């Protein structure tokens, strides 16, 4: 069956064939034919955002919380340039999204036409791949290929730039099964010899540790299940990057907590002291490694990654395994079982005793207060009052993000959406909108700082228009908290431009948009206020006034190794001078 249709109709048809149910976007001159087609159908819901950056972050939230490809639609010129931050964010965190951009008609390209920008040129370094489609006959197969590229191998953002005349012209539609997939077919099976060598290393290691990352989440729920099985069966301790939280449950007995710059003491000390480091789907980011020449100095290092360029990029690997985490874990488990399920029980027992000693440091302890809400306390209460609920968390970027990672527990993958690699302030709110669209009946909370939140506050309009009950839990310290912390610790307490003057009244702001606002400043009122937020059926801005000068600990100062961690307040001195610091 051949079908002739316009490019605009073809695009909408291709999205339907790919199973797309939601598109986040903003109309403009160069995408009007596409919006006309969207108007005339009911299978795909279009969500009108208030800024194109938010469309892309919403698509990211949708993708991270479902494992499916998120879709954003923007117009040419400024629409496309506004999408650049979101594309870069998705590239750094390996999130599969497709941005569809309008372009001026092909015969006007290069003439500095109204709202013309070299979109494929601008987005080439911030997409996994992009296309400028100049021929309607090729449009549908490019869209199908775009989905394939975005979601296979190491996932990432792609962009398809579609000139307006291509949207108007008619051609034959190529359905999904007939579309050429192209030559992009990344390797998913790991090398069996190296996998066997890794299993052998696991059998004899005295102090092994799993260091897992976003690759486990991206590999799908099956990979998380296999990881859990492997961890339980071997009894090896496990830590995770910010991106990997939820792959292994926070309540699991082998869980050490997050590692890295603001990771837990026991997790970082285990990384420093281990003799076998098994990296599963993480990339030795600088927030994780600290000083490279002192990173995990006495360990054999294994690295499982679907992207060959991640291996040996910053840390030399002894056992490199290129492949999809799920496939490799499956093979690892099979080989390990076939060889008799061996581990070094004696070594592991000693290793766990040492880890338990590190745990007694209780590195997340903070000074409590009866008069002012500590941000850590606010998150502890949020965790306690939402535990067991069908809950999704997004965050902005800064201190609140690190505290959320430390104090909230994630039991399942795809429940935690945060900007890790790019560190995009303004990510959390639009992302929460994307998550809520994908999970209309779930509880979606954006843990935010007031400064980050203001960067995309216009999205209140979107939340109210689509009746999305997203909870904006703002830890308001009236400061750019993380910037202030670094200025205090590293720049002689000169607080250059890290203080926000003239903050809005967030309750009135909520009301101005037709939403609910809650202000809370007393620790005694916090539980009731959080319950009021949870019980309200609609978007809420929760303005939680917290301690203004709280610092986020533990912290590995930049340029220091894992065992030079700073703990909160009085403990900081002890952590450096004490016996714990010289452990290997």
């Amino acid at each position: 069956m051949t079908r002739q249709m316009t490019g605009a109709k073809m695009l909408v048809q291709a999205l339907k064939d790919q199973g797309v149910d939601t598109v986040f976007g903003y109309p403009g001159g160069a995408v009007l034919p596409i919006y006309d087609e969207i108007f005339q159908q009911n299978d795909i819901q279009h969500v009108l955002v208030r800024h194109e950056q938010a469309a892309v972050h919403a698509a990211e939230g949708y993708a991270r919380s479902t494992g499916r490809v998120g879709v954003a639609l923007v117009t040419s010129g400024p629409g496309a340039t506004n999408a650049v931050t979101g594309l870069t964010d998705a590239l750094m965190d390996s999130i599969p999204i497709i941005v569809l951009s309008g372009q001026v008609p092909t015969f006007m390209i290069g003439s500095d036409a109204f709202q013309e920008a070299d979109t494929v040129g601008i987005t080439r370094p911030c997409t996994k791949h992009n296309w400028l489609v100049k021929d309607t006959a090729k449009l549908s197969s490019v869209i199908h290929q775009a989905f394939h590229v975005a979601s296979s191998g190491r996932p990432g953002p792609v962009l398809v730039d579609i000139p307006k005349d291509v949207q108007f012209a008619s051609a034959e539609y190529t359905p999904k099964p007939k579309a050429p997939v192209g030559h992009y077919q990344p390797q998913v099976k790991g090398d069996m010899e190296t996998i066997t060598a890794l299993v052998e290393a696991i059998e004899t290691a005295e102090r092994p540790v799993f260091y897992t990352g976003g690759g486990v989440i991206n590999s799908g729920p099956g990979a998380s299940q296999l990881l859990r099985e492997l961890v339980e069966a071997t009894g090896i301790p496990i830590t995770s990057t910010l991106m990997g939280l939820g792959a292994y449950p926070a309540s699991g007995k082998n869980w050490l907590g997050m590692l890295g710059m603001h990771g837990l003491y026991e997790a970082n000390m285990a990384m420093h002291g281990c003799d076998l480091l098994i990296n599963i789907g993480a990339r030795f980011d600088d927030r994780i490694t600290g000083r490279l020449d002192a990173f995990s100095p006495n360990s054999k290092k294994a690295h499982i990654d679907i992207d060959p360029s991640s291996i040996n990029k910053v840390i030399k690997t002894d056992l490199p395994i290129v492949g999809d985490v799920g496939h490799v874990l499956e093979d690892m488990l099979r080989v390990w079982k076939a060889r008799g399920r061996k581990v070094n029980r004696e070594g592991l027992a000693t290793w766990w005793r040492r880890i338990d000693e590190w745990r007694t440091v209780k590195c997340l302890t903070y000074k409590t207060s009866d008069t002012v809400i500590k941000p850590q306390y606010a998150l502890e209460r949020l965790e306690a009052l939402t535990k067991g609920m069908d809950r999704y968390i997004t965050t902005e970027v800064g201190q609140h993000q690190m505290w959320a990672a430390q104090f909230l527990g994630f039991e399942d993958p795809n429940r935690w959406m945060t900007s890790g690699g790019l560190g995009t302030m303004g990510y959390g709110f639009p992302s929460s909108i994307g998550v809520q669209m994908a999970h209309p009946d779930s509880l979606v909370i954006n843990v935010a700082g007031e400064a980050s939140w203001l960067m995309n506050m216009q999205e209140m309009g979107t939340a109210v228009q689509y009746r999305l009950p997203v909870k904006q839990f703002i830890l308001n310290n009236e400061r750019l908290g993380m910037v202030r912390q670094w200025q205090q610790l590293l720049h002689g307490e000169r607080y250059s431009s890290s203080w926000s003057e003239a903050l809005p009244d967030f309750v009135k702001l909520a009301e101005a948009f037709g939403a609910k606002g809650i202000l809370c400043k007393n620790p005694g009122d916090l539980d009731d206020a959080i319950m009021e937020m949870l019980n309200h059926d609609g978007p809420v801005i929760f303005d939680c006034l917290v301690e203004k000068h709280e610092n986020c600990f533990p912290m590995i100062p930049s340029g220091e190794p894992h065992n030079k961690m700073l703990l909160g307040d009085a403990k900081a001195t002890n952590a450096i001078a004490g016996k714990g610091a010289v452990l290997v």
Partner: protein
Amino acid sequence: MSPLQIKKGSNKHSAYNLRPTFSDVQEAHTITVLVENEPGVLARVIGLFSGRGYNIDSLTVAEVDHQGHLSRITIVTTGTPQVIEQIKAQLGRIVSVREVHDLTAEGASVERELALMKVTGSGEKRVEALRLADIFRANVVDSTLESFIFQLTGAPDKIDAFADLMRPLGLIQVARTGVAALARGQGQS
């Protein structure tokens, strides 16, 4: 309430001064990349080099398979062994890239470059230039009473040597194509 003991004046204010612990020996490698010949593919390859701070010493590109829409890009680059490995892995990530081969690492190869050199002068110098051109098997492809354009092919060091000899004899312009290279033997890499 500053509990931290960070030394004043230390330059550890940033995580970006971290240096990996790899060998720092610089090596020149010739890398050949087979790519799908589509708009922007050269920009993807060049953008990778500039964006990640890799060197390009020479670059050539042309379509080599019209039916298959394939082009061959030959890049001569310099870097530490770890950087060379990264370059190859990063090139392999580009969706339009079909094959990446390191001719320097994968065995013997043939490297050739074509150069055009304009030499002006008269009298003894002009005669000497012509005599040296003959030794280097350079062809005269244009001539006036006061100038020659020589065409020379060969490995890059042969072209360097010829240019060095021509310089005192009136060399005023050079155009070089950059290196084209193939592995020796029957293999297709």
